[in-house]
C-alpha cells in the first residue's frame, strides 16, 4: 500500500553560462507510488507558485524507453535501483525523512545546459559516423532472403536495447562512451546485413568518440552497472576485437 513521505532535496541549480550551486528544498507529502519525476513535478509546482523558477530536468516518455531522463541521485546515475531509468524509479524505494542529492550527469563530453539538463548530442555524432547500415529506401531484397540465426538475432537485440541516455558515460570514471559505441558496433557485427561496412564502421565510430572528448576504457565496469537496459560489458570486448581486426586487415 502506498503512504506519504517527506524528503529534503539538495538540487544542483545552474543558469546558462553561469556557475552552478546546490539549493535545498523540502518535498513534503510525497506518495510512495509516485515516480521520481512525479516527485519533482510536485516540488516544481510549489516552486512555481512561490514565485521561484522550477527545476529544469529532461524527460519525455516516462516509461523508460526514450532515454531523455537521467540525473545523478545520491551520486548514482538514475538512482541506485538496478536496471532502471529515473522515470521508472518509484518513491517507495526512499525512506521518510531522507535527504536526496540530485545532480546532472557529469562528463567532459556532456556540458551542463541548465540545472539537471546536459548536452548529450555528442552521442548522436558518434552514430552519424556509421551507427547504421547504409541501405537506401528501395534497395532492400525480400526480407526472408536473409535468414539470421536466432541466437545471433537475440544477441543483436540485446545490444540494440540501448536507449542512449548516457548513464554509461556519466558512471565511468573516465567519461568514456565505450559501452554506448560498443552496443551499436556489436549489433551490426552480429548481423549478416552489417558485414559490408563492418571495418569502416568501427574505425570511424571509435575515432569520433576519441575526438569528442570521451575518455578511454580502463575496465571499471561501472557503465554496465549503470545501464538501465542491462547492456552487457562483453560488448566492449567485442568492440575491441572488431577494432583490432579492422585495423589489422587495413580495410578501407
Amino acid at each position, binding site marked *: 500500500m*502506498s503512504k506519504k513521505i517527506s524528503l529534503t532535496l539538495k538540487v544542483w541549480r545552474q*543558469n546558462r553560462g553561469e556557475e552552478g550551486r546546490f539549493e535545498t528544498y523540502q518535498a513534503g507529502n510525497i506518495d510512495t*507510488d*509516485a*515516480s521520481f*519525476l*512525479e516527485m519533482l*513535478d*510536485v516540488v516544481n*509546482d510549489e*516552486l*512555481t*507558485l512561490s514565485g521561484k*523558477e*522550477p527545476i*529544469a530536468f*529532461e*524527460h*519525455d*516518455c*516516462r*516509461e523508460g*524507453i*526514450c*532515454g*531523455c531522463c537521467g540525473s545523478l541521485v545520491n551520486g548514482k546515475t538514475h538512482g541506485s535501483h538496478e536496471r*532502471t531509468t529515473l522515470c*521508472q524509479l*518509484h518513491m517507495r524505494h526512499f525512506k521518510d525523512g531522507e535527504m536526496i542529492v540530485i545532480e546532472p550527469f557529469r562528463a567532459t563530453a556532456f556540458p551542463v*545546459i*541548465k540545472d539537471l539538463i546536459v548536452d548529450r*548530442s555528442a552521442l*548522436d555524432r558518434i*552514430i*552519424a*559516423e556509421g*551507427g*547504421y*547500415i547504409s*541501405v*537506401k529506401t*528501395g*534497395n*532492400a*531484397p525480400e*526480407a*526472408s532472403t*536473409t*535468414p539470421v*540465426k*536466432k541466437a545471433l*538475432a*537475440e544477441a543483436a*537485440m540485446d545490444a*540494440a*536495447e540501448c536507449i*542512449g541516455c548516457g548513464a554509461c558515460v556519466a558512471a565511468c570514471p573516465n567519461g568514456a562512451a565505450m559501452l554506448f559505441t560498443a552496443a551499436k558496433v556489436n*549489433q551490426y557485427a552480429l*548481423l549478416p*546485413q552489417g558485414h559490408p561496412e563492418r571495418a569502416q564502421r568501427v574505425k570511424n565510430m571509435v575515432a569520433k568518440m576519441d575526438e569528442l572528448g570521451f575518455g578511454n576504457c580502463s575496465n571499471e565496469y561501472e557503465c554496465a552497472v549503470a545501464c538501465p537496459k542491462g547492456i552487457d560489458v562483453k560488448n566492449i570486448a567485442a568492440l575491441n576485437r572488431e577494432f583490432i581486426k579492422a585495423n589489422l586487415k587495413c580495410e578501407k
Partner: protein
Amino acid sequence: MVKLDARIPDGPMAEKWTNHKFKVKLVNPANKRKHKVIVVGTGLAGASAAATMSELGYQVHSFTYSDSPRRAHSIAAQGGINAAKNYPNDGDSIYRLFYDTVKGGDFRSREANVYRLAECSNLIIDHCVAQGIPFAREYGGYLANRSFGGAQVSRTFYARGQTGQQLLLGAFGALQKEIKKGGVKMHTRTEVIDIVVIDGQARGIIARNLVTGELTRHVADAVVLATGGYGNVFFLSTNAMNCNASAAWRAYKKGACFANPCYTQIHPTCIPVHGEYQSKLTLMSESLRNDGRIWVPKQKGDKRPANEIPEAERDYYLERKYPSFGNLVPRDLASRNAKQVCDEGRGVGPTGQAVYLDFAEAIQRLGRDNIEAKYGNLFEMYNRITDEDPYTTPMMIYPAVHYTMGGLWVDYNLMTTLPGLYAIGEVNFSDHGANRLGASALMQGLADGYFVLPNTINDYLASSSFTKVGTDHEAFAESEAAAKDKLDRLLAVNGSRTVDDFHKELGSLLWEKCGMARNEAGLKEALERIPQIRKAFWENVNVPGSADDLNQALEKANRVADFMEFAELMVKDALERAESCGGHFREESQTEEGEALRDDENFCYVSAWEFKGLDQEPELHKEALEFEEVHLSQRSYK
C-alpha cells in the same frame, strides 16, 4: 473557401498506386537539389521521410524539440508492426490486410489510402530487415510473427516488446547517415511555432530555439508535418509528456482543414490511474492479449483477492460475448466492454476502475519461462510501477487515451488543404478510420515516410511555381511578431495556478464528456465549459521565467494554450457526428446488445473543419466515403 479534392486515382483498387506513381510529375535529379523541404518531427514518419527525401537529393531541414531525433514517441511503441507477408501460411494477403483495416476502422477510412498502406507494408519489412533491425526470429532463422487484435491471421512482426524503438532507431540511423552526408540539416531542441504562408503556399516556419529562446525563420518550398497525435489534450494519456497538437493546430489556423478530431483511440490495456500526482499513463502492449485472459468477478462488489475467486465465479466477458475473436477483439470493443463492466460495479482494484488480465492459464499451459521470454520486459515494467508480481497475481488494467485517428485532412498525395503543406504519420487522418488496429501505427508512419511521401511530393514541387522569397518577407515578420506576442502574454499573466492545473481540468472534462462514451447533453456541457476554462487560463495561469531562456513551463503553457482551443473543435465534431463508429461511441446510437451503431445513410463521410477566424464557427466540409471493395456492414466480431 476550401474545396476538398481527395485526388483518388482512377482504375481498379489494386492498380491505383502503381498507376499514380507513373502519372505524377517527377523532379529530375539535378533539380531536386534546388528544392528545400522542411520536415517537422523525427518519429517514424518524420525521420523516414527526411532520410528518404535526402537520399533522393532534396535539401532537407529536419526539426525536433528533443535533444536528439531518437527521442520521438514512436520509440515507445511496444507490440509490433503489421505486414501482409503471409509467412505463417495462414491465408493472409495484401487484400486481407486492407480488408481488416477498413473493417477495423469501422468503415470511416478512405479505401484507396488503406489499400496503398497494405501494399507498402511488405516493403517496410524488407527495408527494415536490410537496416539490421533485430526482429524476432524462429530457430530456422526466418522471421517470427504474432497475433494482434482485429485479425484472425498472425501478421505482426516484432522486436521483443520494443518494436517501435528498434524501427525508430533504424530510421534514426538513416537520418544520421544523411546528416553525415550533408543532405539533412538537423535542428534539435527547436520547436515549430508557426507555419508561414505566402501567396497561398506553405513556404516556411517560425521556430523557437528551446535553449536560448530565440525565434528563427526558415524558408522552404514545402513543409511536412510529422508531429504526431493530440492525445495529450486529455492530460493523462500514454503519450510522452511533450507530445502536443500545436504544429497541427497552427496549420489549421493557417488554412489546413482538420479531419475527424473526435476519433480518439482509448487503448484497453493500460495500468490504471492511481493518484492525483500522476503525470501519465503506461500502456501494457496489446500483444499481452495473445495469452492473457481478461475477466472480472460475476458478482458486483466482490472484494476478494483475485486468486480467491473460484473459476465459476469469474466472467471472461470478451470470450463470452465474442467467441470467434475472444480476447483479441479490436481495441475500441475491448475498451468499451471494460468500461461497461466497471460501470456495472464489477470493476476491481482499490478504485473499482480496473479489470484483470490473467496469465495463470497461459503459465500453466506454456510454462513460466516461455511467458517470460515473450513478455518479460512488460511484466518487469508492470512490477516496477505497481509493486505487484504479474506472474502470481493477475495484472490490473484499464483503458487509457493512446492514439488519435483524427488529424489534418490530406489528399491521396498526403497534402493538406494548404498547398505545399503535407501531413504524415499520426498527424494526418487518412488510414485508420474511426479505430486503428494494433500494430498499424508503425506501419502507417513508415509507409508514409519511406514510400508514399517521397513519391508524391514531387508532383507538387514539379508542377508549382515558387516566387523567390527570403526570410525577410513580411509574412515571416508577421508570424514571428504574433508568436512573440503570445509568449509575452503567457508570461505576463502571472496568476495563481500552474499550467498543469489547467491542463488537468481540461483533460478530466474531456475524459468525462468526450471519452469512451459520449452523449449530446454531455458534449453540449463540455462546449460551454471549455471556453470558461480557456478564459480562466489566460487570466490566471502562472508561467515563471523568461522567453529568452530554456523555459519548460513556457513551452508547456504555449502547447496547453493550443489544446484549450483544439478541445472545442474536438467536442464540436463529436457532437455533430450523431452516430457511433469505432472509438467514437455516441450513447444515443447503439444496437440492442450495446454495440456501436453506425448510421451510414447520414454519416458516411469524413468531417473536415475549416478555420474561419477566432470568434467564428468553423465550417464543416464533408468528403463522402465510397466503398467499392469492402461492403458496408455492421461490424461483427462475435
